[in-house]
């Protein structure tokens, strides 16, 4: 995505070709912004700013009583809610890390001359397009502790049969695994685009100098696919930290609260009618995502390699 380059681009705006002699009326009308700005302000900016106020209230949609930081205190003191806070970080970093590693490995495989490449590309990417809820249900059945196919196979092989979604210590990681299964296709695709764009001469030159496959990967392919790596990290982190659909489809945050994340806490509090607390959860999620994404994207921008 182009997201990564934005600070760079906006700073280095070139002077207009017609310079100072610009006509009073530009051929690029500013009112083209207005429809989008209207939507953005009404349905995104206003709710976001309102959330800061409503997170400080006891709220029923009709009247709001100001209660200061009580909602935030509740959020951080109640272990069940606080769990969701911790899980959000764990889930975001684990899924993002796994997508980077697996995506890069698959991209290397799928850009090398193996047989069945077209088929493999299609099959790795297809889960990206499938309904998340559908994927959740399919894996819930496949990984059912008693009837599921996976545990039946493990039983035949005399291996332990874990309670994938039912064991409180495993549920979150099982969901993360399903998330990676569904999302690794995008990461692979982005890495593939990055690797294909590396000029062939560099690779030939390295080979000529006697570089081993590992050295070639380490010193040529990896540094030159940095932009792709940045895109993958940013996209998968944004998705992972905000993740809700897959968790709700598989465990509803359970067993107990073992796989709750902030997004599922927000929904649960909303369902229970605690709109103020739910909105406080939203503000916390906002702060978490911003606190992680701003330094991460800064870092990635700085390290960008010019070809």
């Amino acid at each position, binding site marked *: 995505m182009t997201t*990564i380059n934005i600070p760079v681009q906006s700073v280095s705006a070139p002077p207009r070709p017609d310079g100072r002699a610009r006509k009073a009326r530009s*051929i690029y009308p500013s009112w083209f912004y207005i429809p989008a700005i209207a*939507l953005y302000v009404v*349905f995104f900016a206003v709710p976001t700013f309102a959330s800061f106020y409503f997170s400080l209230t006891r709220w029923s949609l009709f009247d709001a009583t100001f209660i200061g930081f009580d909602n935030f205190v509740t959020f951080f003191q109640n272990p069940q809610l606080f769990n969701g806070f911790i899980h959000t970080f764990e889930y975001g970093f684990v899924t993002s890390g796994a997508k980077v590693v697996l995506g890069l490995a698959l991209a290397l495989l799928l850009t090398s001359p193996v047989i069945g490449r077209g088929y493999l590309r299609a099959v790795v990417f297809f889960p990206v397009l499938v309904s998340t809820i559908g994927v959740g249900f399919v894996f819930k*059945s496949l990984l059912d502790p008693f009837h599921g196919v996976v545990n039946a196979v493990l039983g035949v092989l005399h291996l332990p049969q874990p309670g994938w979604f039912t064991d409180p210590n495993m549920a979150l990681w099982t969901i993360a695994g399903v998330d990676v299964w569904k999302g690794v296709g995008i990461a692979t695709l982005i890495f593939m685009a990055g690797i294909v*764009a590396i000029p062939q001469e560099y690779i030939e030159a390295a080979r000529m100098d006697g570089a081993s496959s590992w050295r070639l990967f380490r010193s040529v392919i990896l540094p030159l696919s940095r932009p792709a790596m940045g895109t993958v990290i940013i996209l998968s982190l944004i998705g992972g930290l905000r993740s809700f659909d897959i968790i*709700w*489809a598989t465990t509803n945050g359970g067993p107990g609260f073992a796989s709750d994340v902030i997004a599922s806490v927000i929904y649960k509090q909303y369902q229970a009618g605690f709109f103020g607390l739910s909105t406080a959860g939203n503000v916390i999620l906002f702060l978490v995502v911003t606190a992680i994404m701003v330094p991460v994207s800064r870092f990635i921008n700085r390290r960008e390699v010019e070809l």
Partner: protein
Amino acid sequence: MSRRTRIQRWVVGITAILASVFVFLVPFAFVVIQAAKSPAEASSMNFDLPAHWLFFDNLVAVLQSNDGIIVTAFINSTILTITSVIVMVVFAAMVGYVLQRKRTRWNPWINFFVLAGLIVPPAVVPTIWVLQGLGIFKTLFSGVLVEATFGLSFSILLFRAFVATIPRELDEAATIDGAGPIRLFFRVVLPLLRPVIVTVIVVQSVAVFNDFQNPLYFLPGNDLATVQLTLYNFQSQSLSQFNLLFMDILLITIPPLVLYIFFNRQIVAGLTSGAVKG
């Protein structure tokens, strides 16, 4: 190519194909088999082939269940997807075009807000509050506006990147030939944006069609249910009818599958733009 690399090619390829069969194809085969079973067979969740392939019977049963709610949901999802994507395309193309062409001191701010729209999670209950204030909560119309808004940022980034590849001289030539700003955009620039328009349409259609979280919050009730919501309700209501649940999953998978087959290239282009030059 040496003999060794040729052997390697085959060994690695066949290993990868076998692995992909287990990891990616088995789950899909499972859906198809489950969807053709009788209720009793399906509840055992095993891989045995059904005694009788009840594919068509299950299809009819799914479409008729709960007074045909799935048909309603398909209609809702279609309306929601098509209209919100149209709004996204037109509005985002206008912004992406002017944002790329015209350099003002506001540009850094606009870029900042576009990026914020991509990163910041929407505030759920306050959005409902706004929708209620406008008197449009619990209408499909509000769902369209919300989905369109949440998809704007990503679409703007795609358009802005693509407009950069269209030479500015073209705009100047059209202006000298007497085209006004509106004619210039809609008659000259917009047709040239066709590849990226297709990309935005396909990528965002899949996103809106598969969205679960926003319809869950903003489109409550059976009349407004989208396909993802009916799927979710299906499993909570009728745990005994696994065959119908999987038939529903299969049905819902078909539209994205069709898009993928026809627009494979555009999807790839949309998702990888920027991977190369950042």
